[in-house]
């Protein structure tokens, strides 16, 4: 059974003084997230990522279309028991300590006091906040709030976790820890659906990604599959012999005596011929694997 099924999910917001001008934030999103995969939801700011997650979490309601999570409609309490959610830039009750906040949320899952205490300790430890158990949340930095948000999202060992920009506000160490946590969750058999605009993170972590732009899903699939659609390129590294000039019209990067020239794979032999005519010394020819970033920017340009 798919963990997330979205069918033509559309969301319009009413804008303007009289709230009569509809602005489409999400346009006919059809998407499926499978069990035990890490799914990355990519897109620039304002693409509709948070809108999608909020629709799935039943925090906002669709203008049209439908969604199901673990086979149940959004907002169904039996389904909510099986998922966890980290909001974007989370903000919690600042009069509570981290321990109290987690204990408060854990109560909704019916754990007794002893079990809650065990879980609070375990999950604060897991997100690196064990020493801040009794610190009020008003004294937390952005990164600490983010970690606390992660802890509350997984305190009940959910089957699927929805993380909205989990790396935002974190320093490089924190980002690394969140990446490790996502991989751990996958190893434990959970499904992770997260939105991000940090492409290298998505490339490292995701089994599949969906790319959203202007509210529309522009591409969706396994990272390998998507980047292979970008077309292959090669990089030729060469040196010029003494007295020889650089052939006209070459877009190259110079590093010391060496020149790097990136061209589509199909143009390789023609390029080699040109270099041979210029009596350049070819040092290496390397195939360049397109990155998710190349794919992403390729889509954005279209």
């Amino acid at each position, binding site marked *: 059974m798919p963990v997330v099924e979205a069918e033509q999910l559309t969301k319009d*917001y009413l804008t303007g003084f009289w709230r009569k001008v509809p602005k489409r934030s999400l346009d006919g999103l059809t998407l499926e997230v499978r069990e035990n995969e890490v799914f990355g939801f990519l897109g620039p700011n304002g693409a509709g990522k948070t809108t999608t997650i*909020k629709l799935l*979490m*039943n*925090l*906002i*309601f669709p203008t049209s279309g439908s969604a199901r999570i673990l086979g149940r409609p959004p*907002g169904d*309490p*039996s389904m*909510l*028991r099986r*998922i*966890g*959610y*980290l*909001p974007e*830039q*989370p*903000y*919690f*009750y600042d*009069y*509570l300590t981290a321990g109290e906040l987690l204990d*408060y*949320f854990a*109560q*909704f*899952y*019916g754990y007794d006091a002893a079990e809650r205490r065990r879980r609070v300790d375990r999950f604060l430890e897991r997100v690196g906040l064990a020493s801040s158990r009794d610190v009020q949340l008003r004294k937390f930095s952005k990164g600490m709030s983010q970690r606390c*948000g992660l802890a*509350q*999202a997984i305190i009940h060992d959910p089957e699927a976790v929805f993380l909205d920009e989990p790396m935002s506000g974190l320093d490089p160490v924190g980002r690394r820890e969140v990446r490790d946590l996502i991989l751990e969750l996958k190893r434990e058999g959970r499904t992770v659906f997260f939105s991000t605009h940090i492409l290298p993170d998505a490339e490292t972590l995701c089994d599949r990604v969906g790319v959203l732009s202007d509210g529309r899903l522009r591409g969706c699939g396994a990272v390998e599959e998507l980047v292979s659609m970008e077309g292959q390129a090669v990089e030729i590294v060469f040196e010029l012999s003494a007295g020889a000039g650089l052939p006209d019209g070459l877009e190259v990067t110079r590093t010391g005596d060496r020149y790097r020239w990136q061209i589509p794979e199909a143009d390789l032999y023609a390029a080699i011929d040109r270099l041979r005519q210029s009596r350049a010394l070819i040092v290496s020819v390397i195939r360049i694997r397109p990155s998710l970033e190349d794919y992403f920017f390729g889509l954005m340009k279209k």
Partner: protein
Amino acid sequence: MTTVRIIAWNTFREAVRDRVLYNLVFFALLMMVAAILVGQISIGIERLIIVNLGLTAISLFGVVMAIFIGVGLVYKEMERRTLYALLTKPILRWHFIVGKFAGLGLTLLVNTAFMTAGLFLALYYVTRTLSLADFQILTAVYFILLQLSLLTALALLLSCFATPIVSLVCSLGLFIVGSFSQDIRAFGEMSQTPWMEGFATTVYYLLPNFGAFNVIAGVAHGKTVPVALILDNTLYALLYIVAALLSAVAIFSNRNLK
């Protein structure tokens, strides 16, 4: 109902941590000063003054708390986005509304209980005795609690769709007009104009009749509150609270949390 209880307890804890109950210190000071002064300047009407002052203060302190906290109950959570994590726990939206109402209700109950104890202490200090008739004060306190619960439900309803400042003005307006709704009806009858009379009567029935809960003067004079009035007011408050909460739930359940 467990989820409602959890939310209610957290709302109470928030009020306590936000030092809301500090108003008890002001109340205690007020009663101490009043008790000392009354003993010196009034002869024979000490009880009347202390009961009047005490019950009025309990009512006013409670009204201020109910309105100022009530108008932010839902709005504040939406603005600060603390609701996002909460509503994705296995709860329904009506649990949140009822939990918030119960939490503030508990806060008001505890606050009122302490103030009532303070009033009895002051009364004992002044009169050096407590008679059975003095316990009529508890009926007046019960009416104040009904009034505060109704006001909380209305403030909570407004909080579901209006900003705190708009809710504050509306709640306060409703309380003031509702406290004089019998006068509005009497004014309509005096006007002897059919449309004015009809308008005043409609307003009288639509607005919450806060004036009906005010038995402070009677109790201060040692009068007994009729059982029929206790039953009427209880039923009236319950119906109004249920209607206000149902409306709040209906609005909040269909609200997009941006």
